[in-house]
């Protein structure tokens, strides 16, 4: 097998393992380790890493697990992601986890934090409130307090104290991780045929369940491989996908879009891993302050953040231009209020900028892609025709 295939086989195995075997093995290797699950979108994993913890992304169960108990906890008009997460909790797949973080992205995730409290899952269940005020002395102070709560929670689990040196070290490792991911996206922008969107997705998703020390060399190898020519360019259009930041689209959906003649040159599938857009200061006396500063000033745009003054529409259009994309696919989970409530305005901004777009909704366990494939195919054809 060639090296890329080896990486992909491994990533496929770990990224979609709903038993989180690798993460559990990692934890079992020493007594002072903490395993922390976090939900989409963004969580500064550095603060867990620095205290001997592994932050594992819980992105739903997709089509990898049958929902047996979870449906009894959610009405039909609530998105699919939380029922998969509660399924994992109730069938004890998450028993080795010490704590859970629920970022403030929507009311479903917020209330799921309470469900974990009621079900007494983990030693702590922390709702992580993103400040919606971006003044360093107001929202910044609040964000620092939120981070400290999680640091204290983790300390109660494994007794490991946070040090400046450790946090700087962790920040440096995640800077490398983000930088390598940026490189992959940049190479794909020029040569999207060298690594498919499905493979890119799988490699990034694996990074949410294994230690960053293991993920970084893998990414380096991928960068190296795709820096060389491989694959065949096709007569495809180039699209940006937006709206899939939380409940993840099934792999079949991503594949269908590609097969319909669209190169996905940017997306928000693994937005949390790409949330901070540049490097965070890793040589500072105040690394918590550096994380805060990065959140306030260097976050990407997202439906979970208040955008007045820096509208998402404008930022989406810039992204499309930067990536030299032909169009946008609005692809949101059904019943996802944050993504769906943003959609009309984003579409309008695209219209004003002359950017063609289509939209559809999915569930993480959608099994039929025929319609989506046809829609994407027609979109691709129409762009080629008018180009």
């Amino acid at each position, binding site marked *: 097998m060639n090296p890329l295939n080896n990486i992909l086989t491994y990533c496929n195995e770990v990224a979609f393992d709903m038993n989180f075997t690798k993460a559990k093995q990692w934890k079992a290797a020493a007594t002072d380790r903490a395993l922390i699950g976090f939900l989409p979108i963004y969580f500064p994993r550095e603060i867990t890493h620095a205290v001997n913890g592994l932050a594992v992304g819980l992105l739903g169960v997709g089509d990898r697990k049958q929902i047996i108990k979870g449906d*009894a906890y959610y009405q039909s008009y609530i998105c699919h992601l939380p029922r998969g997460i509660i399924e994992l909790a109730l069938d004890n797949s998450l028993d080795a986890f010490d704590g859970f973080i629920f970022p403030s*992205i929507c009311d479903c995730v917020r*209330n799921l934090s309470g469900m974990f409290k009621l079900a007494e899952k983990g030693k702590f269940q922390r709702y992580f*409130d993103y400040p919606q005020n971006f003044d360093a002395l107001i929202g910044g102070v609040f964000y620092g307090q939120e981070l400290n709560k999680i640091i204290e929670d983790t300390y109660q689990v494994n007794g490991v104290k946070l040090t400046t040196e450790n946090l700087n070290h962790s920040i440096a490792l995640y800077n490398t991780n983000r930088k390598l991911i940026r490189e992959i996206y940049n190479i794909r922008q020029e040569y999207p045929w060298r690594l498919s969107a499905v493979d890119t997705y799988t490699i990034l998703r694996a990074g949410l369940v294994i230690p960053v020390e293991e993920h970084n060399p893998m990414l380096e190898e991928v960068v190296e491989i795709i820096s060389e020519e491989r694959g065949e360019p096709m007569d495809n259009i180039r699209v940006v996908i937006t709206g899939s930041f939380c409940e993840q689209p099934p792999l079949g959906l991503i594949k269908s879009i590609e097969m319909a003649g669209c190169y996905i040159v940017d997306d928000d599938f693994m937005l949390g891993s790409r949330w901070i857009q540049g490097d965070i200061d890793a040589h500072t006396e105040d690394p918590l302050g550096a994380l805060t500063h990065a959140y306030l000033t260097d976050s990407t745009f997202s439906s979970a953040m208040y955008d007045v003054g820096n509208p998402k529409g404008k930022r989406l259009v810039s992204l499309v231009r930067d990536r030299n994309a032909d169009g946008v696919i609005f692809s949101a989970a059904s019943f996802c209020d944050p993504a769906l409530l943003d959609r009309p305005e984003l579409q309008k901004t695209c219209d004003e900028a002359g950017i063609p777009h289509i939209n559809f909704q999915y569930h993480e366990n959608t099994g039929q892609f025929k319609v989506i494939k046809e829609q994407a195919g027609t979109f691709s054809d129409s762009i080629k025709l008018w180009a």
Partner: protein
Amino acid sequence: MSTQTKEAIKEKSMIIQKDMLARQFHELSITKETGKKVVYTFVPGNLTELILSFDMLPVYPEINALQSGMRKKSASYIKEAEKMGFSEDVCTYVKCDIGMMLNGNIGPTGEKLPPPDLLLLSYTGCFTFMKWFENLEHLYPGVPVAMLHTPYQEDGRITPDQVEYMVKQLKEDVIPKMEKVSGKKFDEERLAKMMVNSAKAEDLLVRILASAKHRPSPIDAYFAGVYYIGPIFTAFRGTEEAVEYYTELYDEVMERVRLGLGPVTPEGEMKEEKFRLVVEGPPNWTNFREFWKIFYDAGAVIVASSYTKVGGVYDLGFRHDSTEPLESLAKYCMGCYTNMNLPQRVDLLAGYVKDFKADGFLINSIKSCNSFSAGQLMIMREIEHRMEVPVGFIESDLVDPRYFSYANIKNRLESYFQMLGQRKIIMEQETEKIF
């Protein structure tokens, strides 16, 4: 007997409230002439006293949406918004409001509502609020937005850090924007004075809602409750008028207690109280009367509800405090029902079942509202387990009539009432055996 043939009882408090609302909407319709500034904001975590202290007028888009629902206008407004690209899946309050705006922004009294001079995004207990006002910001370009981020009570309590964060936002962002829009300086003394009135009205409301502990309950704390909370949850908290209204309402309710009377319904007084229920979740507005009728026809009275706590859980002791006005606004916002975590919500509801001696616990799960609905099935299990009362579950929507299936809801409720009836008989038999 049909609703049309019976004369609805109009108590003095109802007339007072009607007049208050008429005056409010009239005042809103003449802002062009009076020059008064208008602030759009939300019910949970509203800063009414602060807005009024600047002589500005609040408008609550949620109230407009529910009024549109009651006036059977919401279906077309929602369609209008869906044509604009809003998904069928999202909160219908937002769509109804945007549809209403696109249709001329005509308020419940038939008068046109003025556009906002300020969008006060009191981001309390509901994520959708943020999305809603981000959309309004685009529909009213150039109108300033003041964001007040209310931290969630994730630990089941309000911490000093959270209060400080909110007060800083008030001082550094919200108040300066209000000063700019209104052209007036912030007057803390005036705000504090209003809070004395707020606390008086809050005391009275608590006593009014607590009256449902009597048997028979003199009030329905859900269907009539939504009218009782109107003034204090919206434009009148902090005013003399609100105190007068609640004083009158309190006297009326106490008179009913003295006379041993049941609640007033649209078809007159309810004669026999058969079941006492606690209800979680907002009501349906498009078929409000029909919905209520299913209950009073069966002799079911709602003795406590979470919906009447969305604008403040005053029964837990919070009062606006004139000695610390800004801190008190912060605590008020954080204390609202949907800003409480799930274990707190369960404790509150379980307490209602116990204190109000309820026979059952019912959830009206609203399609639109993840803030309420996500997790409700777990709340239901917890209450059933802890309180050992029969639980019921129905589904509807706030203002989208496509999601109110009368036959379905009626069937479900009738089966539920039957179950409550049988349980009552069994329990009575068991009590007889003991004695």
